């Protein structure tokens, strides 16, 4: 125990590691904020960059970038309605309306504060309960992942904000788009028409940048002489009463985040979407309706994706299984530095676990401080006249898309999605569900098929599975409740309306 404390304190006392952590977070915020640049990309670049460094230093800068990048995604989502990272999609739904009202500072300030809180929830959970959660996460079968994805899909109804039929249609078109390419589990080519570029599939980041970024820019050109909103920057940091008000929601969403993050194969993006949905269902009377600038709509996804950071380290450090894309790369970094990440890691190198816990703690503090400091300069971006900012946003979308895979084809897709998104908006088809469909489609499809194959392709056996496994039963009931809660009978029973 004393040893563990000692390991925990090392990064606090080593100003070199400290500097790398703070620098990493600052860089990460920018990486996260720029669409197309992702934490995954930054951390894999860092592998070569830190090849000859000492392991602790390399890990410090990677942890810092990871934490910063998850946070940075929210900034562009709030200011420009272009999520800098997939985990911030839900954040923009209420964040951008707030920015349009001149409340970007308040939104980012609250986001920063609850982010710090959630990130700490994740770290503490990692420190005290990692082995238990990791073993529980392993119990999730393909059928349960299918149910989780289905839960996410139900969100389509709640993020549309218009005609539900149009929302569903947009979401399902997204699912169909996600089928394009080579099916990873059977190698079958779907909707590729013999084209090699289509075989690679359509990256959801490409679609996201187009559907949010370029279509937003085009929509703004309809009214390009309109003034940009003046931002109120008098009160950035939320006061204690505000914080206390959102505390229960923040705690719930962080818990969702930690757990979804700990599940191998799902990360902050899915966590944020599920948390947003959860908030929308449980909070009946927000001050402002969801979708028009509800602060709850920022708190829920932003706490979930920060909680998912600590969560993703849980299976990585206890079992050597990555919790998300970034931890997968960090496992590679550990191998390259001569360690054996896996079940033996905590036994062979116990100090590593506590050092990472401590590095994540410091990163969270750095995030809080640096985040609050950057609210003012960032908020100024949105005050720049549209005629200047919009051409820059378009070029940023182009270069960001290109950078994902160094592919000009992706840029064409992105512009195509931009035009499509613009037309969809004008006819009342929401673009959010389409991105959701593209993200969740593969999760839904491949886990359904895996579960079906596990049931030897027999419908009866497949359906029986939903009621025989406790986790599946719980998720099935939860989905049934989510559907029931939409009906009039339920609203009558609860005395709503």
């Amino acid at each position, binding site marked *: 125990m004393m040893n563990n404390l000692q390991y925990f304190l090392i990064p606090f006392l080593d100003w070199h590691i400290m500097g790398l952590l703070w620098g990493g977070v600052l860089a990460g915020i920018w990486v996260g904020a720029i669409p197309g640049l992702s934490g995954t990309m930054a951390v894999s670049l860092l592998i070569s960059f830190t090849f000859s460094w000492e392991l602790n230093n390399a890990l410090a800068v990677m942890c810092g970038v990871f934490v910063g990048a998850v946070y940075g995604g929210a900034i562009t989502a709030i200011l420009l309605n272009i999520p800098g990272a997939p985990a911030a999609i839900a954040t923009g739904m209420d964040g951008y309306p707030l920015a349009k009202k001149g409340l970007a500072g308040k939104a980012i300030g609250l986001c920063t504060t609850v982010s710090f809180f959630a990130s700490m929830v994740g770290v503490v959970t990692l420190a005290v309960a990692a082995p238990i959660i990791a073993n529980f996460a392993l119990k999730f079968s393909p059928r349960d992942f299918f149910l989780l994805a289905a839960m996410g899909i139900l969100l389509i109804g709640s993020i549309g904000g218009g005609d539900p039929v149009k929302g569903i249609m947009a979401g399902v078109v997204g699912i169909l788009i996600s089928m394009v390419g080579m099916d990873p589990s059977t190698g079958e080519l779907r909707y590729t028409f013999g084209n090699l570029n289509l075989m690679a599939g359509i990256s959801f980041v490409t679609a996201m940048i187009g559907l949010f970024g370029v279509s937003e820019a085009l929509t703004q050109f309809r009214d390009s002489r309109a003034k940009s909103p003046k931002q109120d920057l008098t009160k950035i940091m939320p006061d204690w009463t505000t914080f206390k008000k959102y505390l229960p929601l923040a705690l719930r969403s962080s818990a969702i985040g930690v757990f979804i993050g700990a599940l191998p194969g799902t990360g902050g993006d899915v966590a944020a979407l599920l948390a947003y949905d959860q908030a929308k269902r449980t909070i009946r009377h927000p001050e402002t309706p969801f979708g028009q600038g509800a602060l709850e709509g920022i708190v829920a996804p932003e706490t979930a994706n920060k909680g998912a950071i600590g969560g993703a380290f849980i299976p990585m450090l206890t*079992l050597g299984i990555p919790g998300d894309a970034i931890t997968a790369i960090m496992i*590679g970094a550990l191998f390259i530095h*001569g360690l054996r990440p*896996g079940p033996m890691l905590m036994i062979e190198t116990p100090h590593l676990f506590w050092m990472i816990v401590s590095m994540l703690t410091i990163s969270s503090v750095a995030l809080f401080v640096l985040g609050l400091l950057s609210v003012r300069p960032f908020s100024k971006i949105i005050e720049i006249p549209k005629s200047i900012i919009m051409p820059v946003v378009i070029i940023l979308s182009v270069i960001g898309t290109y950078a994902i895979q160094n592919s000009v084809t992706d840029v064409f897709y992105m512009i195509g999605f931009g035009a499509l998104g613009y037309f969809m908006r004008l006819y009342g088809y929401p673009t959010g569900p389409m991105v959701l469909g593209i993200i969740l489609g593969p999760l839904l499809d491949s886990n359904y098929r895996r579960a079906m*194959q*596990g049931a030897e392709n027999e419908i009866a056996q497949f359906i029986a599975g939903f009621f025989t496994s406790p986790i599946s039963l719980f998720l099935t009931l939860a989905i049934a409740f989510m559907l029931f809660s939409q009906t009039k009978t339920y609203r009558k029973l609860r005395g709503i309306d």
Partner: protein
Amino acid sequence: MKRVVGSALLFVLLAAGAAFAEYPEKPIQGYVMWGAGGALDNVSRAAAPNAADALGKSIIMQNKTGATGAIALTTVANAAADGYSILFGAENPNLYKVTGISEFDYDQFDPIILLMANVGVVVVPKDSPYKTYADLIAAAKSGKTINMGSTGPGGLPYVATNMIQKIHGVKFNLVAFDGEGPAITALMGGHIDAVAVGLLAASTYIVGDTISGLAVISPERIESVKNVPTVLEAFPGEYDSYLPWGAFFGVFVKKGTPSEAQNKLKEAFLKSYNDPRFAEFADKMGGVKLGLTGDDARKYIEQNKSVSAWLLYDAGGAKVSPEEFKIPRP
């Protein structure tokens, strides 16, 4: 007129200068055909920094994924054969022709070095009723349903599983995963009964005793998991025509790349390969160091191609017969 002649002269001089300049004179693009965090990515990123040091120019690594690596391969095949675009590739292109994914494969490339081999290993959960490889095969023969993890046609698990099914005349219930990692995760949770995967993906869990290795699909035992027997120990003789077989990770350049550049690259990567740090990395990952260059590398690739292509064809996973491409039967 004078100006035109002048600039033409200048151009010729510059071009000649470029041809005579020492390779490499600018950073090299390294295309990794699988995603960040995967086995190939780890091997490539472990080898590249030291090679870049030896070359004196940086190697810019980028993952270009999709179509089991065909996107990256095609990118390099379409780039100039000047040694400034190099491919970090795995065994998958050996099946592009029979699966109809692409008309390009390693025939259009020269191997610089094969860094590491990845042999197959059959693993089961720790509390599995199957204690030996013979147990597993016997259970399959008795007609019991065994849920066996797999990946898409062409992946190591798919080919290895078909090899086992063919040799022993058994049939598993295949559950397809997106990759080896997710299959092992499902195995740990007890959602499948067994899976044949590459040792690189499994060795850390076998060493950590969270899953059990029943047999390595290799003629000899592997150093990093010494206590796992080979398939030959359980079934002597039956695997002979297929072994040695395994996936590989290597560095490739487009055919026609000047030999000067090829030799420089070979030298640099051999230096990186012989670095003690790479050996330690290979051992921790559970990979078998190969270090093959030139004709040896080509021979290794062809052997893998022959076994995999025909197994895939016999299992019904190939669109075109390997005969069409004059791939000999193993």
